[in-house]
């Protein structure tokens, strides 16, 4: 291992600009002559627009244009799409209602986009928006996930009269039911996976621009996947053909899923730029972000686990209602289906699994992928069930898990996935050692002496990530392929530019991707630049989400580097006057096998461009190669997190005393960055478990619309983390990497709730486990104890 190669804890390149304030985010960009957009949003969760009069408002100072759903219709701007087709169990396609970028006749959640005012300043746009005359016929609102399908519920989309987008299922129902009938013991649990607001610290922003000279649109936007944005804006929404539309996603201040999607605001800014003949800028304020960034999670689930007389798990079944909000967002349909149910086997050998999922419309903000996307929900179901079963059976939860772990690979689960590699018992053993699991009894007694309740909780999670392969996701309904592309440009002086379709918004790609190049080409790390986020520079790409950039994005670079090395060998053969078959490349040097003839990488790059040593008929000049990489399987990171808490029974407040994470991410490129990603995931998972929850009132008003009411994890809410690793290389990609971005968010919620339920002696503690929730659980537990 070199000091900057694979496995080295190289300090991040991008930090140089971030810590000196030189990062360049969308809102940092101002275009000459730009105007500002302000969106008039629906104050009602569900209403018909009876009349909308913008004439008076148009005369207000500074106003350039006011556009509404009628203009969208006139200009034939296509609706926002949901790009993953799910079929119900009866074979019918999902019921996708219309989703215009500006409302047409009806609004379906508070914050829905009614009109846009474009003016010289944001203040003038707001003043004019207040002068828009609009009459609503307010309709009853459906807010609750569990009751949206009931008889007599208000109908949100005509296409779905029972508010049901799909009734989907996975697995063999008959076999699973039979296994339950034969079970010695059945554990049952009811769970709510709380709705979360993604809250990247950078609010979404967009600048649309139109060059009438060449008819090219440019969109600067906060996107995790600028090429997908361009594809959707071109092929589906119809703004402009792809060669006339450039999308730039510069530095992006966190995404966590919420910046994957193609939203109304970005669409409107780029469309309106041509209409007003000026660049149009929009920056979300924080309340708008709470209202309009796609939320995450929001499941209601009943789940059961069957065990035999030996404590072996024989079957699992689950029934989930997933709230998809007022419209289907870009990938929302896939999250509670194919990103969820195929993970219900967890790390366990379970012969029979059956899962039903109903996706429902409600008058709430659309719900889509948020860090983990489906897999945290699956892990929460599996790990709460397994923990509860172990306790009911009187077994140590760690032993119960170990007994039921999958132990040989590859392993085919009954729900699609073929797990390729892993050593779950090794992660558990290491985690138990770091967590000092053996002495928890002693620590519980010490806490008890101080009037506190201590508990410990395990979460043995697995995820399927590196989301791909294209053929597989296509067969499951995805509208796009999920490969990745890379181009490696070697300059004549031997410096290297890598153009990647992945997008970095906190993951440190500029560092880790450069480590790969440095390692493979033997060039200094500083001589490598990673370029991403601009459709004019990078030809195509699928972007960054689903922990895919290592496994898929870097594999594409790896493949392109293979080609660069191959080409380099051909050039070297001419330079070193040997046959290409005798050229070897190692540590940045081309050598002729069995001789001391050698040329370093930079020298060969120069020769490739000078092209004096070979003719054009023999070899093309230059050194630039591209590759598309489509993996053969998902990757399966897995691990064990152990959370230890202390509860103050007087107030119910929970303090996390110790956090242990042992993850198997396969080969690790940069342990420092990977560990940071683990920290981040855990912080978000702890946030979900203890603090966060989007709340609507019965009328569908968002109650948690600022940081005064939506509790984010802060420095003093979080413990320091003890992170360990185990490594089983991923066999399906050339680097052996699996992905690490989501693991913490997937593992953490179950670990926290298992720890709290252990501490308070009561199985039902809902998320977020606020002090009041835990206090009530303490009360119930002591009442139960008294009754016994």
């Amino acid at each position, binding site marked *: 291992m070199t000091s900057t190669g694979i496995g080295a804890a190289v*300090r*991040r390149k*991008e*930090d*140089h*600009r*971030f*810590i*000196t*304030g*030189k*990062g*360049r*985010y969308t*809102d*940092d960009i*101002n275009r000459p002559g730009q105007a500002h957009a302000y969106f008039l949003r629906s104050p009602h969760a569900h209403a018909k627009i009876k009349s909308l009069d913008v004439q008076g408002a148009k005369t207000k100072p500074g106003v350039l244009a006011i556009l509404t759903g009628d203009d969208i219709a006139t200009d034939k701007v296509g609706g926002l799409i949901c790009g993953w087709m799910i079929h119900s169990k009866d074979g019918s396609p999902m019921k996708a209602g219309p989703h215009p970028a500006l409302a047409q006749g009806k609004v379906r959640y508070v914050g829905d986009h009614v009109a846009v005012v474009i003016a010289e300043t944001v*203040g003038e746009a707001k003043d004019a928006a207040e002068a828009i005359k609009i009459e609503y016929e307010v309709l009853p609102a459906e807010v609750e996930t569990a009751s949206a399908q009931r008889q007599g519920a208000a109908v949100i989309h005509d296409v779905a009269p029972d508010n049901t987008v799909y009734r989907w299922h996975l697995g063999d129902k008959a076999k699973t039911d039979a296994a339950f009938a034969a079970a010695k013991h059945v554990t049952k649990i009811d769970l709510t996976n709380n709705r979360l607001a*993604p*809250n*990247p*610290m*950078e*609010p979404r922003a967009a600048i649309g621009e139109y060059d009438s000279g060449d008819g090219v649109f440019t969109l600067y936007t906060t996107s995790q996947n600028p090429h997908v944005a361009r594809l959707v804006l071109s092929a589906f929404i119809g703004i402009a053909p792809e060669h006339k539309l450039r999308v730039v996603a510069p*530095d*992006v*201040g*966190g995404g*966590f899923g919420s910046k994957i999607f193609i939203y109304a605001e970005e669409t409107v800014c780029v469309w309106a730029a041509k209409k007003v003949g000026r660049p149009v800028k929009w*920056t979300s*304020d*924080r309340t708008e972000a709470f209202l309009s960034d796609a939320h995450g999670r929001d499941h209601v689930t009943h789940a059961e686990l069957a065990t035999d007389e030996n404590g072996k798990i024989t079957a699992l079944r689950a029934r989930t209602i997933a709230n998809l909000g007022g419209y289907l967002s870009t990938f929302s349909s896939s999250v509670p289906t194919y990103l969820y149910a195929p993970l219900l086997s967890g790390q366990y050998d379970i012969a029979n699994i059956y899962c039903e999922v109903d996706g429902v419309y409600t008058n709430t903000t659309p719900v889509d992928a948020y860090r983990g996307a489906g897999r945290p929900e699956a892990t929460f179901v599996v790990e709460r069930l397994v923990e509860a079963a172990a306790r009911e059976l009187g077994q140590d939860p760690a032993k119960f898990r170990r007994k039921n772990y999958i132990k040989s690979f590859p392993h085919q689960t009954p729900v699609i996935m073929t797990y390729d590699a892993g050593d779950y018992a090794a992660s558990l053993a290491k985690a138990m050692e770091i967590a000092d699991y053996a002495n928890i009894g002693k620590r519980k007694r010490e806490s008890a002496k101080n009037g506190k309740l201590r508990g410990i909780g395990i979460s043995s999670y697995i995820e399927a990530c590196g989301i791909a392969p294209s053929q597989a996701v296509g067969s499951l309904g995805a509208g796009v392929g999920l490969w990745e592309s890379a181009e490696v440009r070697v300059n004549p002086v031997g410096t290297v530019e890598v153009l990647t379709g992945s997008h970095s*918004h*906190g*993951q*440190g790609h500029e560092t880790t991707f450069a480590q790969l190049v440095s390692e493979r080409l033997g060039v200094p790390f500083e001589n490598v630049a990673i370029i991403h986020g601009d459709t004019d520079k990078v030809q195509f790409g699928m972007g960054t989400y689903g922990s895919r950039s290592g496994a898929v994005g870097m594999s594409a670079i790896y493949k392109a580097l293979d080609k660069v090395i191959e080409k380099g060998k051909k050039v070297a053969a001419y330079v070193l006057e040997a046959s290409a078959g005798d050229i070897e490349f190692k540590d940045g040097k081309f050598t002729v096998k069995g001789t001391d003839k050698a040329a370093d990488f930079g020298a060969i790059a120069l020769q490739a461009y000078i092209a004096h040593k070979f003719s054009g008929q023999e070899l093309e000049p230059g050194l630039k190669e591209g590759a598309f990489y489509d993996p053969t399987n998902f990757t399966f990171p897995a691990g064990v997190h152990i959370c230890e808490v202390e509860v103050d029974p007087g107030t119910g407040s929970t303090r996390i005393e110790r956090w242990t994470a042992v993850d198997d991410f396969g080969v690790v490129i940069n342990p*420092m*960055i990977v560990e*940071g*990603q683990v*920290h*981040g*995931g*855990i*912080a*978000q998972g702890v946030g979900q478990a203890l603090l966060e929850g989007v709340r609507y009132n019965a009328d569908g008003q968002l109650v948690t619309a*600022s*940081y*005064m009411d939506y509790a*984010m*994890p*802060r*420095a*003093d809410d*979080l413990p*320091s*983390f003890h992170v360990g690793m185990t490594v089983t290389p991923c066999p399906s990609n050339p680097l052996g990497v699996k992905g690490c971005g989501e693991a*913490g968010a997937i593992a953490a919620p179950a670990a926290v709730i298992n720890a709290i339920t252990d501490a308070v002696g009561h199985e039902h503690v809902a998320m977020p486990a606020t002090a009041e929730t835990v206090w009530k659980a303490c009360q119930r537990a002591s009442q139960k104890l008294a009754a016994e």
Partner: protein
Amino acid sequence: MPYTLTVNGSERSLESRDPDQPLLYVLRNALGFTGPKFGCGLGQCGACTVIADGSPIRSCQLPISAAQGMKITTIEGLGTIEKPHPVQAAFIEEAAAQCGYCTNGMVMTSAALLAQNPKPSVEEVKQALAGNLCRCGTHDRVLRAVMRASGRQKT
């Protein structure tokens, strides 16, 4: 109205029609200091933190009219890559930034803390940073960085 303030050691004059315009927008749009970030505009997230007359403040909550005459330090004036402030150097060493957006507030609040309290305890650092939200979950690394900058190691 004309206003004068000192930013990163240079006296800057500007015109603003709105006396209520927050210092944040003045810095970002009129003066070109985009280091301070807009995260919420309501003084609730800390991304806009600058040091005003020696104390960390939320620049989104300070009207330009009230900032008149103040000495402002933004992250651009704290240090450079060649000559970083100890907090900046420690942030790199501990990989304390991820997406970089809250980093301004974390760095500025930490720098102000160490100016007033050069050897804080971990608990004091946590308290000082409780008003700075970070969605990437870098809190543990930030604590380590501040302790490193103070010459101590976080245990």
